[in-house]
């Protein structure tokens, strides 16, 4: 449920390193808490983001939440298939449900994020 090798935020995003780029999505926990996702609002390619800046919005039948970027960087790719198939976020949060790819500007910032093990402990401490 929480793959090793990814870095996790306290706001329940994950980032996967691909060279100097990072692929970003939301965790299994986030999608299960939201319920059926019906809409995602993503940034335009090229948009610069700071670490933990809101980059978009995910909307389910019961809530709307901001999406926070795990690292500082520029948006290189956006998963446009989510426009017509937002349910991929529920069915495959670490695969087809990815949201953006960013060019990582400050690799040091990854230290502020959690490993899978730490994220699981964080969820447990939060009572989940």
């Amino acid at each position, binding site marked *: 449920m929480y793959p090793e090798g990814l870095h996790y935020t306290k706001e329940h995003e994950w980032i996967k390193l691909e060279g100097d780029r990072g692929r970003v999505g939301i965790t299994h926990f986030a999608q299960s808490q939201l319920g059926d996702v019906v809409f995602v*609002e993503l940034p335009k390619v090229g948009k610069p983001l700071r670490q933990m800046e809101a980059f978009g919005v995910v*909307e389910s039948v019961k*809530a*709307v939440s901001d999406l926070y970027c795990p690292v500082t960087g520029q948006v290189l790719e956006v998963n446009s298939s989510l426009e017509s198939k937002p349910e991929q976020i529920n069915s495959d949060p670490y695969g087809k449900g990815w949201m953006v790819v960013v060019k990582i500007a400050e690799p040091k910032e990854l230290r502020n994020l959690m490993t899978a093990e730490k994220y699981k402990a964080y969820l447990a401490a939060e009572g989940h």
Partner: protein
Amino acid sequence: MRYIPNTEADCRTMLDAIGVRSSEELFADIPSKLRLKRGLDLPPPLSESGLRRQMNALAGKDADVDRYSSFLGAGAYNHFIPAAVSHLVFRSEFYTAYTPYQPEISQGTLQAIYEYQTLICQLTGMEIANASMYDGSSALAEAVLMAHRINGRQEVLMPRAVHPEYRMVCGTYANKLGLRLLELPYTDKGTTDLKQVKAALSPRTSCVVVQSPNFFGALEMLEEIAEAAHGADALLVVAVAEPVSFGIVRSPGECGADIVVGEGQSFGNHLNFGGPYLGFFATKEAYLRSMPGRLIGQTEDKHGRTGYVLTLSTREQHIRREKATSNICTNEGLCALTATVYLSLLGRTGLRELALLNLRKTAYAKAAFSKLRGYEVRFSGSTFNEFVVRSKKRTPAQVNRALLGKRIIGGMELGRFYPELADCLLLCVTEENSREEIDALCKAMGGAR
């Protein structure tokens, strides 16, 4: 009639329960010098019938449209309201201003709002409409904010032919968001100058606002303005203060509007001293998630039966707090219901006939004023049910005073909002004004010298 249900014994019991000697002690925290240590200086109480007489006498001091003939419009329109409207709206199943907190339990209320949204879409020529807003002016302000949400730009082109109070409300809403409202002048036709629109458009322009029929009653060239706005990647926001005009003019949607807002008072709602009124708000489906307010959707239950739900409310204030799409978190449910009943009674043909009546009577009055000594029609543009008259001799205030003496409510004195039109009156003629009334108005004004 007793308004205070507590007996002295009730009060005693309550005071004993909390251990206080008198109710006066409950106010001990208020400094003594600030307290009024005597009864209020009020006249003695009245009986119910006496109270009724007094209130009627007070109401009789007003010049109302039942006892006066009225030629005042300017955003509030005197239309006939069939008795069937109040009969249906006052039914206990319907008679509340609130959309219930557990909305889906009230399928009838939701269905009525859904019908309302459908009617607004048909009239405006747009794809989606919300469940209503406070009034025309706040609906326009919300449209301006929405355009900014969509394209992030900062400038709003705001013609002076837009209702001055609508412009003021927009200014209040836009002010702290750093949006700039740029005024555009009107021409001798009483319409917005397309050349000036084109000259003012830039990559900073978020939207162009146009009111049609505009504040002077004149019809704007929506299609040309839409084309110009879209050419600069700006949105066109169309405001309609007199929606009876929908019965006869092409819908703003057909002319290329991106957001259409307006005032729905004309649809079965009384003048009500200026409120509560009904803001309507419609746009394209592509902008659904940027639209303020609530929305009723049609769906099916697990047995496949049609049902209605409050939808997309996840972006409203009670859920998203400070990140909500808009600060509006309610709607004008009862006024929207009234409009729905009214429009259903009129139907497509009825609304068209009503619009034609307004148009013809206004044309008759306008022709009369073009021949009346001491007056002239100020603007040359095509109008719907309002037009501007310039008084060459008497001031508009003098004219209106003389008219009131003859039980006629005259037009709005434009000097209040337009110093350069201080000698002008904005007159409105609806189906409620008979030919005799219009003739009497001309005679009274012709004689007011």
